């Protein structure tokens, strides 16, 4: 065990490639979060306000996204749809699976957020003559956003970390790129150690940015 010789040079030589792949990871996670927030908000509103098939659809989405392994969801969008004749690029597979997963989790966060706003806020806004739309966009959503802000940050971190599963469908994000480079040089440990540091830094940057933004956004 102790006669292993570390060789960091190949890793350092490939560091620009790893950092570029780190940006790909960040990009796919950010896009998945944007889609996840929009779709998750829609799913939450459907589950709160509608009945019938649309509501069943939204509930099924949330149940599947939250109660099955993220890996299986990824495989479904990759190999499952592939078997049905729908072929996507690895990037598209990872983006759709991540978005699906994020939307499911965020839908529940949003639902909790909406339920935390007392009805009396709606009454107060409507009594001033605001329309339902104005009430939602100016009074309810801003308050919900604050309630879900920290869960949203968590989800963003989660999206970065589980995007690493993308390597299993051939996506060259940070983990996929590391795997490819490591298998060429057999410096597996060194590559993944450096990659772990890059993941750590990405997450720290997200958390720091989130904290700065929160201080600016929430003065109350």
């Amino acid at each position: 065990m102790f006669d292993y010789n570390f060789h960091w040079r190949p890793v350092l030589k490939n560091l620009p490639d790893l950092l570029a792949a780190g940006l790909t990871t960040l990009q796919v996670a950010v896009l998945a979060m944007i889609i996840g927030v929009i779709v998750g908000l829609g799913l939450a509103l459907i589950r709160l306000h509608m009945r019938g098939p649309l509501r069943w659809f939204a509930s099924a989405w949330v149940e599947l996204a939250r109660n099955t392994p993220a890996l299986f969801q990824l495989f479904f969008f990759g190999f499952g749809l592939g078997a049905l004749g729908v072929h996507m690029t690895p990037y598209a597979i990872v983006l759709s699976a991540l978005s699906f997963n994020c939307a499911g989790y965020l839908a529940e966060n949003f639902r909790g957020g909406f339920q935390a706003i007392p009805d009396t806020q709606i009454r107060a806004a409507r009594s001033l003559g605001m329309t339902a739309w104005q009430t939602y966009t100016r009074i309810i959503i801003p308050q919900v956003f604050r309630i879900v802000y920290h869960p949203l940050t968590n989800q963003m971190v989660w999206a970065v970390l589980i995007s690493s599963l993308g390597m299993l469908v051939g996506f060259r994000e940070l983990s996929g790129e590391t795997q490819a480079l490591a298998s060429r040089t057999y410096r597996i440990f060194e590559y993944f150690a450096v990659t772990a540091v890059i993941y750590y830094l990405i997450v720290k940057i997200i958390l720091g940015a989130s904290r700065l933004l929160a201080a600016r956004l929430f003065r109350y």
Partner: protein
Amino acid sequence: MIEIRGLEKFYGSLQVLKGIDLDVPKGEVLSIVGASGSGKSTLLYCINALEAIQAGSVIVDGIDVHARGTDINALRQKLGMVFQQWNSFPHLTTLQNVALAPQIVKGKSRAESREIAARQLEHVGLGDKFDVYPSALSGGQQQRLAIARALAMEPEYMLFDEATSALDPELVGEVLDTMRLLAEEGMTMICVTHEMSFARDVSDRVAFFHQGVIEEIDTASEIFGSPKSEHLQKFLSKIR
């Protein structure tokens, strides 16, 4: 003028308003008193259609509030409302709380809305609190903020739903003073209240609610001086 005819309201099979007839002319201050659960607050919510009704009608300045096709958002601008739980918007500063509706509902410019808001906040004695958030205000201050917010829409009627019931005793006075001020300025007001001194001193008329009906309505001096119905006599004897 607000005209209420044969108003009935059910929650499921429970009837909370059992045929209310009431006229409130411009300039009048009407207090509504009665035990909790007698339907007082529900009546207010039926006037600005925050609650639907099952029979009868509410006419405000000739417009049927509950008719299909009535622009209720336009009508609500005439009917300012102040709630028991003040309901300030926690994510907006005091000034923004008041300026929001003039800007987005009435379509006034940002500058003009802020001007209106500043004027109304000074009106209720919050002239030094423009940029603080409601969480930094006392209950009494938040309730005055709610009054300013309603006034900023330049309503012709003000509906007060137990505006002082949720306040600590020492904060009740400042809100009642603000309501008195409005009454003196000639605002038409319907006040559901448990403050008998306010009802007696400020209102032109007082309505006594009992189990979903107006059991007695008269001038304040008649209601408090020579109550006729047995229930009203009992009610007054309990709170004295």
